[in-house]
């Protein structure tokens, strides 16, 4: 049988899913064990117990200086920035995208502008954001917003153009005006696409968040990683990276569930 026609069965699939992760863990811990056997003070590849100790120190012990649980404090700050940034970007992207994609008179000036704006490397204007918005929360949120809004808007614009013209005509014969046509036809058809777009942009959003936190912040997951780098504290950095990955994956999963539950018509394929 050809390779492309062979499908894993249920249990086989589970095994194949876990296999690469198990391999990665095995390679890491065997390397870590051998390094620590040579030099118990080695910091590069900490053992599981060292990482558990570090997490216990950060997550379940009060910080002596601030009296806070740093791990959760970092998580809350980062998630807040990310949430606000993603929310604003989604809303802006949706509005701009629909305006550019559904109303030709708005699309004419907006579409080229969005294309150009999306080409600006957001990290290159991070200094400008710090100068304009200060070093507080606003500049970090703005980096996320500026970084992903043009991409979301362009995606939504494209999808808005892909709505069959027949449907737009039909809606007009049903008595829609421009506004209600967008409200009842274009918007609901693009909401699932917005969720998909957000899922795809999650990685970029995290990137901008970590970058902003690394440069100017007093808390946050990115801040902590870059802070402890000075002490080469891999036992903190590695769990933080795993935690960030887990959070990102959970957000992705959440968005996928929302898509499935709120837009049951979307997956069945269109007429």
């Amino acid at each position: 049988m050809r390779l492309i026609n062979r499908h894993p069965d249920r249990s086989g699939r589970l095994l194949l899913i876990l296999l690469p992760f198990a391999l990665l863990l095995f390679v890491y811990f065997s390397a870590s064990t051998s390094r620590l056997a040579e030099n118990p003070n080695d910091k590069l590849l900490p053992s599981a117990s060292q990482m558990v100790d570090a997490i216990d120190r950060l997550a379940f012990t009060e910080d002596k200086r601030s009296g806070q649980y740093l791990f959760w404090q970092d998580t809350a700050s980062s998630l807040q920035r990310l949430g606000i940034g993603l929310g604003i970007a989604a809303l802006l992207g949706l509005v701009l995208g629909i305006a550019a994609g559904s109303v030709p008179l708005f699309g004419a000036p907006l579409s080229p502008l969005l294309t150009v704006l999306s080409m600006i490397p957001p990290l290159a204007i991070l200094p400008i954001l710090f100068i304009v918005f200060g070093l507080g929360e606003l500049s970090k949120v703005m980096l996320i917003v500026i970084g992903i809004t043009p991409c979301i808007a362009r995606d939504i614009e494209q999808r808005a153009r892909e709505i069959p013209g027949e449907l737009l005509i039909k809606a007009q014969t049903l008595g829609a005006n421009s506004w209600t046509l967008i409200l009842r036809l274009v918007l609901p058809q693009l909401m699932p696409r917005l969720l998909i777009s957000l899922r795809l942009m999650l990685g970029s959003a995290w990137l901008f968040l970590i970058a902003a936190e690394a440069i100017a912040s007093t808390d946050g997951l990115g801040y902590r990683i870059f802070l402890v780098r000075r002490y080469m504290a891999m036992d903190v950095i590695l769990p933080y990276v795993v935690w960030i990955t887990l959070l990102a994956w959970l957000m992705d999963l959440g968005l996928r569930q929302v898509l499935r539950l709120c837009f049951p018509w979307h997956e069945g394929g269109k007429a």
Partner: protein
Amino acid sequence: MTLYSQHIVPLSEPVMHDSSTPPASTGKPAFIEARNLWQEYGDLVVLERLNIKVNEGEFCTLVGASGCGKSTFLRMLLGQERPSRGELLLGGQALPNEPDPSRGVVFQRYSVFPHLSVLDNVALGLELPKSKLLGRLFGAAKREARERAAEILTKVGLGHALNKYPSALSGGMQQRLAIAQALVMQPRMLLLDEPFGALDPGIRKDMHALLLELWQETRLTVFMVTHDLSEGFSLGTRLLVFDKVRHDPQAPNAYGARITYDIPLNETRRAQVQLPSELAERIATR
């Protein structure tokens, strides 16, 4: 252009529609009238010198080869396209040049909204004209709209599928839904662009019966583009054949089509019409 290239095909003779002798005038303007209608896209002439009058309540089927402009004519009736030259009149007035609720339409595909249930697809047409700001009704008004929608849906045979999404319906069911959607608006005319082109022959026959029944009940003016000649003959009260009367082999786009045959049809509704025996047989056997 040299003279020999202007090869003009002689007009075919039988029941030729002639614009200079319009059908018996009753004084008031015809329901739909096209006067010297042209449609050109750049160099491409699609329709030229098209003249026709259609009375209210007629069922016109539009047939012709691909690219002969029958769908273009339908789009002009719909208001989706504006004629390059000439006039298209509705009751003596120029047709509004954007789609509106007075003209219902069913396309071959993409006629129904995938994100709304069957019931809401139809109720939408009752909600949109009443609510200019939100496009939706609430409370008793919404219930009433849904009840009316359910009534029409039952009539077209979709009473059992009110809460399904269109993607769960077969092609024939989707077209039934699209027809219900158009009818709930009580339009003055119904425009059908190859509505049954993608359906199985058996389903198509059911759809023909449904369409005729609805037409007889509502007495709508119907324009239906079809590729299926027998469909055109059996459904309509009037068959309009679109074809090019002039042809330039060097420049195939130089001349447009017009209506070359205008055949009154259907023995029960137009008893006096004499159909060629072969044709009558074909219809009788359906």
